């Protein structure tokens, strides 16, 4: 029985393709497939882009900022602990609360970074070093403090041990973390800001399919225009334009987010870290009391980098607020360099008391004041550059709002219109 059915079916299919109504039905089917597929793929492309933007705004950038904060807070804690030691006697309440705030900030930023560990497993080693060693560091600092209060010189040895733990293990781990998180920002920017090539190709294919169908229908039916197919073409064109414009807007705002935001933040953050390192070395040179040549040498190297970074930040800056903050930072940097010269002169000529006063004294024009002002200027600049970054990313996300829904609706509309247009002609064969 089955054998009897098969032969006529294949004959019927061949007949269908050869006859005009059969071809028209097939064309309708193909058009539905092409428009819907183009819609789905385009929607998926837009969705990917939008996901990358969301990742950028809610995870990569905050995480890279958290990583930078971990580094900064720990470096500052170390410099502060050394300065507190240098001041002699019981440390000032300001220095103590600054140290405590640094540790609290480092721990909070660390927990932010650790919360997202499943996303970037490559930073696992750095994070476990940081979370495992930070308590050890604070323990050593507290031991040093207790000994200092009891007048035991061994306190200085505990502080040296803490500082060497910080410099040998904690700061390098924080640096690794910062590098990895910054690389993620760049990756998300790349994937959000690429050109809409796939979407363009899909749109062109759908348009070509509609055009060919239109030509066939015109030839067979001697009617120049088919309303349904024209509407479908229009809808596909609208979808293509919408996606192209949105993508171009996204690409250009992502470019802005780099130029006005992340690139500057990176340079400024590195300048801030260099500032802290240099201040730490300046302090340690005095702590070493005449045998600190190694610290002074590194101070010279770091300060040279810092000068270059400030120059770069100045030439990169686009926002007026960032520009003026960097200008002010450069002035304070010069004031600090002058104060440092005075410190070295006094210390090298045996006037330790004057050197100490110039280094940690509270007077304006001293190294401590210049360092604080420089750091504050850099914070201002970083805050503004970050605002520019988040603003750009928000604009980019706004440009994509609803795009997926629009693309889907237009694709559905185009499919329906094509079917209706072909159906109009098909009816005439009944």
């Amino acid at each position, binding site marked *: 029985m089955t054998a009897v059915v098969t032969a006529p079916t294949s004959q019927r299919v061949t007949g269908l393709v050869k006859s005009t109504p059969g071809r028209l039905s097939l064309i309708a089917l193909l058009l539905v497939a092409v428009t819907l597929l183009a819609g789905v793929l385009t929607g998926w492309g837009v969705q990917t882009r939008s996901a990358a933007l969301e990742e950028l705004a809610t995870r990569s950038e905050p995480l890279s900022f958290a990583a930078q904060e971990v580094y900064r807070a720990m470096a500052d804690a170390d410099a502060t602990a050394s300065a507190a030691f240098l001041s*002699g006697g019981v440390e000032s309440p300001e220095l103590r609360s600054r140290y405590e705030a640094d540790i609290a900030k480092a721990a909070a930023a660390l927990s932010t970074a650790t919360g997202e560990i499943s996303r970037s497993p490559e930073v696992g080693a750095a994070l476990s*070093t940081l979370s495992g060693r930070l308590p050890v*560091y604070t323990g050593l600092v507290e031991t040093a403090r207790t000994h200092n209060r009891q*007048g035991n010189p*061994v306190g*200085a*040895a505990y502080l*040296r*041990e803490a500082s060497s733990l910080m410099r040998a293990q904690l700061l390098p781990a924080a640096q690794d973390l910062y590098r990895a998180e910054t690389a993620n920002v760049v990756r998300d920017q790349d994937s959000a800001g690429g050109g809409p090539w796939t979407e363009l190709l899909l749109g062109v294919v759908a348009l070509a399919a509609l055009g060919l169908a239109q030509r066939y229908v015109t030839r067979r039916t001697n009617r120049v225009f088919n309303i349904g197919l024209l509407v479908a073409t229009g809808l596909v064109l609208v979808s293509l334009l919408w996606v192209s414009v949105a993508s171009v807007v996204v690409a250009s705002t992502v470019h802005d987010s780099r130029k006005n935001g992340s690139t500057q933040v990176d340079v400024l953050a590195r300048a801030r870290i260099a500032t802290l390192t240099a201040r730490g070395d300046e302090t340690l040179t005095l702590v070493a009391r005449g045998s600190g040549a190694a610290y002074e040498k590194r101070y010279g190297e770091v300060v040279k980098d810092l000068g270059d970074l400030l120059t770069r930040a100045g030439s990169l800056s686009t926002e007026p607020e960032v520009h003026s903050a960097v200008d002010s930072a450069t002035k304070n940097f010069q004031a600090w360099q002058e104060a440092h010269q005075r410190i070295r002169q006094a210390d090298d000529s045996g006037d*330790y008391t004057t050197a100490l006063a110039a280094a940690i004294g509270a007077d304006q024009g001293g190294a401590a004041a210049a360092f604080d002002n420089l750091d504050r200027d850099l914070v201002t600049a970083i805050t503004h550059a970050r605002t520019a970054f988040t603003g750009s990313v928000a604009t980019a996300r706004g440009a994509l709002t609803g795009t997926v829904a629009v693309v889907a609706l237009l694709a559905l509309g185009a499919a329906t219109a094509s079917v209706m247009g072909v159906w109009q002609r098909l009816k005439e064969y009944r």
Partner: protein
Amino acid sequence: MKRLLLVLLLVTAACAPVPSSAPDITVGSVGAPVPGDAAEVSAPPSSGAAVPACDATASLRPDGALPTPGAMPTGSTMERIAARGRLIAGVDQNTYLMGFRNPGTGAIEGFDVDMAREIAKALFGDPNRIQFKVLTSEQRIPALEQGEVDVVVRTMTINCERAQKVAFSSVYYQAGQRVLASRGSGITGPDSLGGRKVCATKGSSSLANVANIAAKPVVVSVANWTDCLVMLQQGQVDAVSTDDTILAGLAAQDPYTEMVGPQFTQEPYGMGIPKANEDFVRFVNGVLERIRDDGTWSTIHQRWLGVLDRNATPPAAKYRD
């Protein structure tokens, strides 16, 4: 039949092993933090075997009476220092009682520091005309050889190996090496240190002495003596071995440590002076003569090292000419 198969299938499925280990928490290295320059010493430093025997403690005789402060002989090292306006002294800031930074005031104090101030006083009439340059054990001889300091007063043992490179004053203190360990550790002296970790500073004669102990301890070297106390308190070494003066300073900071065993070496301290400055060696010896005789030495000793010996007398000077 079908139903039976189904039941069998279900039973086997239920018995199939499913991995069910509870995940453990993995921890990276848990190694204790160590002082920056700490290292285990595998080969003992040159023990001076190649150095011919000598009478290193015999110094140069003072050149008559001391010149008046502020009126140093023309062309002398002392005049050069006077022209500079301050004496540059290499000292320690990490050895409690001998040379240390007072955590309360930030000032450098101690027995050695007061000795150095006596030299400044003889030069300028003012013990505060002095610049301290902090040196580790290892940095002492290079600093003298390069002329970075006028004098090193830093628990420096006079020996023949060093006497080839720098000049020494007459002996200003007679110390001896002992062992510091935690109370109840079972360590009773150098003989019980076999296989134990013992800490000493790099470039010190104590390090060489520890390496030469017959019981063969494991030697750990650090930069400063307080680093040894840190490692002892953190359980990373079993004992510290050096001069009793330094150990007394460490024990004073930790009541759970004690000095054990006898003095197993003699450590005569001298002030190190650049080899070329023989006039300055004679001058310093003149100052030492004076403070031995007028009771200044005893006052300074009493202030810092009274814990070791209440009635110590200064060691007698020995001269080769």
